């Protein structure tokens, strides 16, 4: 009896696996086939098929697709494609945990034998063998956004976080009249973005504004609650604080919460980074003076441009700064800002 049950279980299990395998291969097929078939999940967009041989073809694999940020990157890439008369496809997995799906997309893209590849790796290690393939086939790889941890890419098109944080410092300085005490709430003391966004701000203040003193830097892991508590403590420790800078969404919101909970709206200048509904609301109600946002359209544009330059045999710099915007209540409705920020 028990054996029978076990056998039945095995049969069921095997058939389930078969179904899954069938689904899997179906998925694979549709994502590796050309643009005439869309599988809805990971949408692939191409203005034409690669049959059009005279135009160079650049395959771009991003880290996402649905998020507004990636749609803006795509928009920029398409703009450049039109300008330089190249063919592009732009695709990415549904979310940033689907490393396997992204690898699948990269493999499919390589199979199409593109002239160049734009790639923002979810996992540099996992994509290494495929990138080596690309190198063997002499397909130039342009890394973008957080880039790829490897020397294969010819360049990386990404936000210069140090320069962006320096701009936040300049804005802070002018908002507080170039004097007084400021503090930083940073999301992380180890990651590259955390360090760049801290040092860019701090060193700019120290080097260029002798009358501004950086009195404290604390790290809140980008955790909204922890950032709120620590920003609140900072305001207690330094009641005469003129301004606080939050280095990402969670940090900036923490500072905004702290200022609101203490009823210090208007007394303390808050400068943020990135966007999100709460930061946009805080700018509209005046608690947040403004924030820095990356420029996703420019990331897409520069990626395609660098690939084109490489195809034309031109030198490309090792790093391409894709720029950033400062946005506040004055320009938040502008088209270029609206394209760069999201709720």
């Amino acid at each position, binding site marked *: 009896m028990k054996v029978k049950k076990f056998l039945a279980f095995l049969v069921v299990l095997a058939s389930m696996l078969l179904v899954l395998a069938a689904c899997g291969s179906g998925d694979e097929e549709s994502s590796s086939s050309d643009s005439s078939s869309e599988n809805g999940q990971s949408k692939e967009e191409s203005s034409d098929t690669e049959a059009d041989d005279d135009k160079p073809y650049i395959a771009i694999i991003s880290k996402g697709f649905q998020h507004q940020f990636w749609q803006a990157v795509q928009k920029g890439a398409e703009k450049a494609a039109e300008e330089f008369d190249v063919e592009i496809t732009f695709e990415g997995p549904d*979310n940033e945990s689907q490393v396997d799906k992204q690898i699948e997309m990269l493999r499919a893209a390589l199979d199409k034998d593109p002239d160049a590849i734009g790639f923002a790796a979810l996992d540099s290690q996992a994509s290494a063998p495929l990138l080596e393939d690309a190198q063997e086939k002499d397909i130039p790889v342009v890394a973008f956004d957080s880039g790829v941890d490897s020397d294969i890419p010819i360049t990386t098109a990404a936000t210069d976080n140090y320069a962006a944080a320096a701009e936040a410092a300049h804005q802070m300085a002018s908002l507080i009249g170039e004097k007084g005490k400021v503090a930083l709430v940073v999301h992380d*003391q180890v990651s590259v973005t955390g360090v760049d966004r801290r040092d860019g701000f701090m060193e700019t203040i120290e080097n260029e504004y002798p009358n501004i003193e950086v*009195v*404290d830097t*604390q*790290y809140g892991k980008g*955790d*909204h*609650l922890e950032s*709120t*508590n*620590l920003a*609140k*403590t*900072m305001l*207690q*420790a*330094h*009641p005469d604080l003129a301004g606080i800078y939050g280095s990402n969404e*969670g940090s900036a*919101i923490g500072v905004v*919460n702290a200022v609101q*909970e*203490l009823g210090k709206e208007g007394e303390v200048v808050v400068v943020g980074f990135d966007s*999100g*509904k*709460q930061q946009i*609301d805080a700018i509209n109600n005046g608690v947040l003076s403004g924030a820095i946002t990356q420029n996703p359209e420019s990331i897409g544009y520069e990626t395609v441009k660098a690939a084109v330059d490489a195809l034309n045999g031109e030198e490309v710099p090792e790093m391409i700064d894709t720029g950033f915007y400062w946005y506040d209540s004055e320009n938040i409705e502008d088209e270029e800002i609206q394209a760069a920020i999201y709720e």
Partner: protein
Amino acid sequence: MADTAVNKQGNSKKLLGGSQALQQILAFASLIILIIFFSVASENFLTWSNVEGILLSTTVIGILALGTTFVIITGGIDLSIGTGMTLTSVMTGVFIVYLGLPVIVGILGGVLMGGLIGFVSGFSVSILRIPPFIATLAMMMIAEGLSLVISGASPIYFSDVEGFNQIALGSIIPAISVPNAVLIFFVMVIIGWILLSKTIVGRYTFSIGSNEEATRLSGINVKKWKMIIYTIAGCFTGVAGVIMASRLNSAQPSLGMGYELEAIAAVVIGGTSLSGGKGSLIGTMIGALIMSVLTNGLRIMSIPQEWQTVVIGFVILLAVYFDMLRKKGE
């Protein structure tokens, strides 16, 4: 307050009661010493608004710690409270923002969701006989994943829900401008204290923790009571989740991981023994306050954050070491 329960197990009242009280006095004394130290170190420490800030920052971890004290006294552990709290705040968001239910229903829903998480953990521990560490580790992951799935991995905002922020930050007694979250914390301390020292739940909690087998042999349905205890702890998690959501005016699905360890640290500093059978909620309250006074004080002195963490680590070591010395003395 543990005396009554301990008594009924026929242990020596004088010794245990004495050392329990001693531990609490020790913890309380450390808290006072810390407060005096920081007051001298920084003039900005002992201001009303900073004290209010300390109390407010104690609430979430504090309420989590209160709930998990019950579980720890039974000799168990609950690792799911951090992400479980996140799941309850996400569910509160779903009820209020997505489904448009009245705020009070959303709050109750959040608290009951916490109870459900606790119940599932309790079921795994008592009926399926999975060790608490593993059962609640699994629950921690399930809750973390579900929070992301249910919310679509993006925050749920309560900005359009009139007054939601006031649940934690408003002040129901205008005369003393203490945020509601702090009042809720103290109310939870009282509720927990009554449950633990004045009701049968509390008696069985201690009894299971001191000797589960003896408890079972004396005819008590240990499985049932364990599930009840985990469910009660889960309800505390739910309350913490609602307060968290209200204070941030949003349910942030990716937060929560790590909060369980801070809560467990608070419980341990408060003198509750991880091997079960002993502990008190007043101790946990003091433990949670020590944690937040320490964090706040070190921050106010602008001690680099890396060192803050080191100091807190040492405090936990010391607290547990003293606890062990005390036990040896018995």
